[in-house]
């Protein structure tokens, strides 16, 4: 049953551009990007117990570096992407050293403060970042000479990256390192007594999450061909966190589902009303008060009860 559902889902995902219009293909690409981003945040929130409110930093900084290098300094896409990923990972390593001095709410506040500083920089350092106007004129790369200009081509490209990201993060979580991460989340002192180094485990996870945040940022900037300081804002971090929590933090598929829902909501709501931030706030209140464990675990619980009743 489960395998059939998975196979159908895979077939639909793979063949989507053959039966869907451009609007839906683009929407699907956005969902893929958002789900890589949410999955990377979930490494911290769900598996590491580190609730970060500054994850947009990695998406935004990677996007800004790639945008600046290709539009202003004439770098080719491959080099720009490598420098962008390298720079973002280095920044994650540095931010990790600062933020991991604290845990829990202190960690949350430090990540928020750091990301707000970057947001402020993106707005105010206008001779570099072009401030509120954002950076335009970004092109999409053409890996192996294949153009990604059409919505379908970009969708398949994003799909490949997403599947790769998903598999890589799954391996990360199911590895022995992933087990020690979960151990540090639940019982840091026991883990330390067993000879593990909780700080190092958290730091490596922080950097790894930053890496996938950077990948999401590159896709984001290639998709939009434009970058604006709002991609670094708290709203952007909060949307991803809402996706993780709505979908169910600490599950593998949950955040991807949650991110898709947040994105669909944003797209459909903005067609009717302008008040996305207010709606986002209300959804936050609703999710936290009504389904604090998230949609995917809630669904599993519901299905288990349903099966239990029918058998």
């Amino acid at each position: 049953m489960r395998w059939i559902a998975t196979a159908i889902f895979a077939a639909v995902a793979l063949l989507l551009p053959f039966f869907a219009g451009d609007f839906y293909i683009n929407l699907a690409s956005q969902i893929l990007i958002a789900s890589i981003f949410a999955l990377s945040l979930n490494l911290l929130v769900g598996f590491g117990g580190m609730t970060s409110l500054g994850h947009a930093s990695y998406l935004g900084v990677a996007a800004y570096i790639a945008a600046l290098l290709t539009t202003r300094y004439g770098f080719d896409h491959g080099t720009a992407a490598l420098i962008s990923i390298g720079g973002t990972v280095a920044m994650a390593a540095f931010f990790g050293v600062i933020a991991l001095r604290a845990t829990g709410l202190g960690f949350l506040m430090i990540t928020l403060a750091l990301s707000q500083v970057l947001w402020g920089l993106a707005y105010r350092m206008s001779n570099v970042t072009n401030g509120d106007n954002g950076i335009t004129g970004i092109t999409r790369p053409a890996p192996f000479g294949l153009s990604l200009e059409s919505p379908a081509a970009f969708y398949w490209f994003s799909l490949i990256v997403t599947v790769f990201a998903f598999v890589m993060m799954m391996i990360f979580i199911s590895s022995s390192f992933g087990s020690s991460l979960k151990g540090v989340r639940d019982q840091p002192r026991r883990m330390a007594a067993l000879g593990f180094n909780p700080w190092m485990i958290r730091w490596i996870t922080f950097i790894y999450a930053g890496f996938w945040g950077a990948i999401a940022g590159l896709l984001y900037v290639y998709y939009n061909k434009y970058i604006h300081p709002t991609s670094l804002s708290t709203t952007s971090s909060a949307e991803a966190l809402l996706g993780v929590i709505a979908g169910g933090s600490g599950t593998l598929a949950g955040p991807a589902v949650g991110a898709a829902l947040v994105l669909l909501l944003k797209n459909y709501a903005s067609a009717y009303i302008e008040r996305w931030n207010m709606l986002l706030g209300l959804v936050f209140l609703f999710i936290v008060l009504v389904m604090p464990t998230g949609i995917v675990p809630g669904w599993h619980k519901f299905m288990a009860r349903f099966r239990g009743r029918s058998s």
Partner: protein
Amino acid sequence: MQFWIIQGLNSLSLGGLLFLLSSGFSLIFGLMRLANLTHGAFFMLGTYLGAVILRDYSGLNIWVTALGAGIVVAALGGLFERLVLTRLKTNPLGQVLVTLGMAFIISDACLVLWGGDSIPVPTPRNLQAPTRLFGFIFPTYRLVLVGCAVAAALGLYFLIDRTRLGAMIRAGVDDRQMARAVGIPVSRLFTVVFCLGAGLAGAAGVLGGPILSAYPGLDADMLPLALIVVILGGIGSLFGAFVGSFVIGFIYTFGTTLFPELAYIILFLPMIFVIAFRPQGLFGRVGA
């Protein structure tokens, strides 16, 4: 010389505002173990209320307006605490997330109600004339603002250190379980402190109006400043918030005038420095 003195005074007045904002944040955090991310939005709501009230009823003075806006924001904060936060007692992460959601709702509501253009708050007429002191000219309102912050600091110190309510709050900060066990109504204390913090932020918003004016995004500008103040000074410590506010006031003001592009990086250096060597903040207690 005049430049340094004027900027010094600007720093002091920003520091004063930051103290009004962050002292409430710090108290709430200390007592409730809650990072109240709505705090910047409470401040902005205060500024908007002040701007709109003083625009429409020019006869009112700013002190009455600040008091009124403080009470309105405190009432809103109290409602939010009673209706939402108490339901999430066992879910600290959920509490932070709903304060974030609330911040989005308030800031978007301000945008709906009062539009995207900034609304100036007039400086009180009797404080518009500059003051001459030791041969230098000072903007009077900023001097008065520093006075307000010092008065608020003294008032808070008196409240926390000398009254029965303050003793109960201190007991709750130190050991919530124990305080409950000896019969202190900790849950009601939460509401009181939350109202107090929200009210201080709202009143600070009005008083900061003549300097900052009300504009969308004010909350996102103020919240990180409050966070940095509290991280720097030590979470839950009033004295830490006091020192941190003036340190950040100085760094931010001189940073923006001397190196406008790098102000944000400069702001962030003392925070890194403190976190590296004293993660609990300058005046924070270990384990708090």
